[in-house]
């Protein structure tokens, strides 16, 4: 029986029947016998000294098991959270973060005490009875002001508020600017945003005394990282800690780090001898889960009047928050890829990480690359505007063409064809026709805007050769492929899926690689007890790194099967043909053994000398390079200049992520990614009170996550330029939509408002903001 080609097939996701019918199993669905509930009492102040904590009333409430503060945790949680700026060469400060405030709270939402009670209602009541006295201290609320000498300090014993200050320079930037015919400058802000995974964080910790074992169910992207760091802090051997990331309801980067509550919940279980559950509330989530972006870019572009880009000089000011996020400094990657799809003589980028009395920032879908794309795509439009050239032509003129292409900082773009995606996207929107229509409408006082974003994305974290300078990190990925005696297969991976559909797509890869029907292949992930050490899912790495690990294990299995087949057929290994799971001697396809038969044989007698029993393989894949998806997005908007409202008329995207395993999943990733970029461009922003540092957007009532009524349909097409760096020819697609889209939307809004002399619009392009700009321009 021939096995259908699965790779490339649009097949429904096998994850879905349980999810659509209410049978998913998320952390809050875990219920253990004797389980207690934990509620965290948090600082209402951005910066305050904790002068006293009175837990008496809370303890006296019936059903309360324990009320714990920093002093109670010290004996069981040693050391600090893994906070780091590993990705930055010039570190200035890496202050320790203990999972619970001890004496001083540095951000609103920092844990001060935890209550453990018989149920969540009692725990909530008790939390309100914990009486804490604070002495409010000056809050550092603006990362630009915080850099100035003499600025108030995020914490009194820090020398200043600088976490890193590092400059990346390539080429002779002064020469580039000296030879420029035009220079454009702009300040481009990347506002703080909430990631808003629909499932908030949560965990269930079950510490069993005497056995000294801990099982932790937690909503995370990185179960192995959590185990690694948590076991260390709790003084348990890693082997005694089992971390399970069950179904996870979205993450977008916000579940990429071990969090204070995972430590506190585990410790609370140890201290109370009870399984303990903690569920984050949404209002808590907005304070206590890491935020994204929070950066200011001051850019200068040197170019010639014919549209040739020469030099790019900029500063990235990144609002770290009170402590480093675990991967916060990764976002400095914006400096290295801000050149985008274009050739530059020189780029000079300085990144400064600044502490504030705010929640930590950490990766949010794209993490540094949306910022880079937004920056360079705005820069190109500014140049086009300055010289009166069509933005599409400026792009074309500067695209790099020869691949592999080494960019200014030595990063090697694996493959690409940027003209092709641009041409296709312009064809889809009828660019020339749109420009004519824009002219016509302007005469009627209507303001249509067309925005382009041609992007290239670095993803597939990551080759150890590239990440080694970051504290020796090797972000490789692992798999185990186990063929059972019946020929059924279990694929166990170190990545973690929380919406990406790996159960389906990894099985598609394994089905083809093994020649075993898709239905017989199960994919497992998320439980450290049965998965090899894995690095988790983020940075659009799961397919290009994890998928390759799956392929490699399959290949090892096939190799062993081939050896066994040669033995059985009494033929040379080289003469064994492997064809869709059938093994036969060249020239004699009629006499074939299926992989199922051979798998059964590997568990029985009669193996060739030296061959071990069983049929399984382990692989760790260390990619030789990053992979570089690219594409062109075009957004068409109309701005109602009377109200400032933006209506998206069309959104067209042509993306190239190399070979496609499942087009349905790829399109879905693009939809969601684009939606999040549009959301940042038009709707979402975290706002704080300037004085007090209090969060003003503390609920989904005031933080405008778009609904089904605000987002457009997405018109997608793709080109296929396989990556030469991996045998699957794949790149990544999880973040591409977000990386491309904010620039397309804002370029469209600016284009619409260009008759008013408006050359830049900050995100989000709120109605009130646009209206005020238009009013100002009209004056």
């Amino acid at each position, binding site marked *: 029986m021939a096995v259908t080609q699965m790779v490339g097939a649009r097949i429904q996701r096998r994850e879905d029947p349980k999810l659509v019918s209410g049978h998913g199993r998320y952390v809050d669905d875990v219920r253990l016998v004797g389980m207690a509930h934990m509620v965290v009492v948090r600082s209402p102040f951005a910066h305050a000294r904790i002068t006293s904590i009175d837990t008496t009333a809370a303890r006296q409430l019936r059903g309360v098991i324990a009320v714990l503060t920093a002093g109670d945790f010290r004996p069981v949680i040693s050391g600090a959270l893994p906070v780091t700026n590993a990705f930055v060469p010039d570190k200035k400060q890496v202050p320790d973060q203990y999972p619970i405030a001890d004496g001083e709270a540095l951000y609103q939402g920092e844990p001060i005490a935890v209550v453990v009670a018989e149920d*969540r*209602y009692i725990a*909530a*009541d008790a939390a*309100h009875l914990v009486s804490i006295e604070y002495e409010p201290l000056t809050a550092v609320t603006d990362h630009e002001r915080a850099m100035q000498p003499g600025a108030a300090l995020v914490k009194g014993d820090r020398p200043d508020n600088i976490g890193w200050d590092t400059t990346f320079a390539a080429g002779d930037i002064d020469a580039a600017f000296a030879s420029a015919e035009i220079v454009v400058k702009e300040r481009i802000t990347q506002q703080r945003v909430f990631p808003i995974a629909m499932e908030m964080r949560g965990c269930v910790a079950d510490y069993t005394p005497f056995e000294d074992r801990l099982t932790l169910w937690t909503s995370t992207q990185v179960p192995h990282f959590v185990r690694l760091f948590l076991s260390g802090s709790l003084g348990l051997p890693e082997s005694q800690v089992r971390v399970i990331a069950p179904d996870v309801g979205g993450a977008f980067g916000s579940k990429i780090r071990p969090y204070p509550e995972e430590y506190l919940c585990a410790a609370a279980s140890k201290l109370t001898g009870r399984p303990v559950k903690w569920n984050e*509330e949404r*209002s808590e989530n907005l304070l206590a889960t890491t935020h994204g972006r929070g950066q200011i870019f001051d850019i200068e572009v040197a170019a010639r009047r014919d549209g040739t880009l020469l030099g790019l000089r900029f500063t990235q000011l990144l609002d770290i928050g009170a402590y480093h996020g675990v991967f916060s400094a990764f976002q400095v990657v914006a400096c290295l890829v801000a050149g985008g799809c274009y050739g530059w003589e020189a780029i000079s980028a300085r990144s400064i990480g600044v502490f504030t009395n705010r929640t930590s920032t950490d990766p949010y879908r794209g993490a540094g690359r949306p910022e880079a794309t937004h920056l360079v795509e705005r820069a190109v439009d500014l140049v086009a505007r300055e010289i009166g050239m069509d933005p599409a032509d400026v792009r074309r003129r500067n695209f790099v063409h020869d691949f592999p292409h080494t960019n200014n900082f030595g990063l090697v773009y694996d493959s690409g064809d940027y003209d092709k995606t641009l041409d296709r996207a312009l064809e889809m929107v009828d660019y020339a026709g749109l420009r004519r229509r824009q002219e016509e409408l302007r005469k009627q006082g209507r303001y249509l805007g067309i925005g382009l974003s041609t992007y290239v994305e670095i993803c597939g974290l990551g080759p150890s050769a590239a990440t080694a300078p970051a504290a020796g990190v090797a972000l490789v990925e692992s798999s185990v492929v186990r063929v059972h005696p019946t020929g059924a297969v279990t694929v166990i991976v170190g990545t973690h899926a929380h919406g990406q559909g790996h159960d389906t797509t990894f099985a598609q890869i394994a089905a083809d690689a093994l020649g075993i029907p898709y239905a017989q292949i199960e994919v497992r992930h998320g439980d450290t007890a049965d998965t090899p050490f894995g690095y988790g899912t983020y940075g659009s790495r799961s397919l290009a790194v994890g998928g390759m690990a799956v392929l490699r294990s399959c290949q090892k299995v096939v190799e062993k099967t081939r050896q066994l087949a040669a033995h059985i057929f009494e033929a040379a290994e080289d003469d064994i043909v492997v064809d869709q799971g059938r093994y036969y001697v060249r020239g004699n396809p009629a006499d074939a053994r299926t992989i199922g038969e051979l798998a059964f044989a590997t568990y029985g007698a009669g193996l060739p000398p030296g061959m071990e029993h069983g049929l399984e393989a382990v692989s760790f894949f260390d990619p030789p390079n990053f992979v570089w998806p690219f594409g062109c997005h075009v957004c068409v908007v109309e701005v*109602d200049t*009377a*109200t*400032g*409202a933006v209506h998206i008329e069309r959104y067209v995207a042509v993306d190239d992520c190399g070979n496609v395993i499942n087009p349905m999943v790829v399109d879905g990733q693009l939809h969601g990614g684009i939606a999040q970029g549009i959301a940042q461009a038009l*709707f979402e922003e975290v*706002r704080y009170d300037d004085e007090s540092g209090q969060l*003003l*957007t503390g*609920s989904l*009532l*005031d933080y*405008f996550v*778009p*609904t089904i*009524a*605000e987002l457009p349909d997405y018109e997608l097409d793709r080109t296929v330029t396989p990556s030469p760096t991996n045998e699957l020819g794949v790149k990544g697609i999880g973040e591409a939509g977000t990386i491309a889209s904010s620039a397309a939307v804002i370029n469209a809004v600016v284009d619409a408002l260009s008759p008013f002399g408006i050359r830049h619009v900050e995100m989000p392009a*709120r*109605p*009130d903001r646009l*209206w*005020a700009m238009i009013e100002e321009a009209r004056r």
Partner: protein
Amino acid sequence: MIPAAFEYARAGSADEAVSLLSRYGEDAKLVAGGQSLIPLMRLRLSQPSALIDIGRAGGLDHIRRDNGTLVVGALARHVDIVSSAVVRDSLPLLAQIAYDVGDQQVRNLGSMGGVVAHGDAAGDYNALALMLDAEIVTTRGTHRARDFYRDMFTTALQPDEVVTEVRFPVAAGPHAYIKFRRRLYDWAIAGVAVQRVAEGWRVGYVNVGATARRGVAVERALAGGASAADASQESSRDVEPIADVRGSVEFKRHLCAVLTERALEQAQAGLSGRA
């Protein structure tokens, strides 16, 4: 989020609700659909000692025409108002406004009486009640809408007084409702309702003051023969918005003028509601 504990009693009628309210005292609250109250309770911004649930009291969900009056029972749900043929014939603007309240789930539970008693300036019906000077009938008597809305979330209702119905004058002439917001289901950043009645135009504003506002100055200008564009500029006299994350005072005032003009034009063109 978990609400604080409270006592709970169900009222089978408005009168029973009154006696339960008196029995449980001033910290007791009446709940009908609960779509505004329960989120506040979850955040513990509201911690009533007792909830008197009038949600299933009999005889309060009527919608009927009474000569020149449309009578809407306090427990008529938004969804019932949207689909009522009587409302469509007697005061189509009300059906349109009801369809723009909250979302499907909120419209299924929230009620006329809840919106009116809550007295929220953002409550969609309050501007309509005010501009038409509807009668708010309670267990103690009848309030004219013009005397009913006192201040932010404050009405003329006594602690043990229960709204039983709202009586709107029938008006089926040109009308429009425009609600400007970031997302379809959000509260209005600014909303305006306009209705042509025998005496002229009636104009009401949503969420641009401590209470709903009637567009007195705009109405006067229109009565004096001003164009929609000119009359709309008068809206700045009628509204007193506050700044928040949705916009500045200036922006909201400006929105009121723009929306008023558009609403008047749409109403006149018979294009109710089109922006």
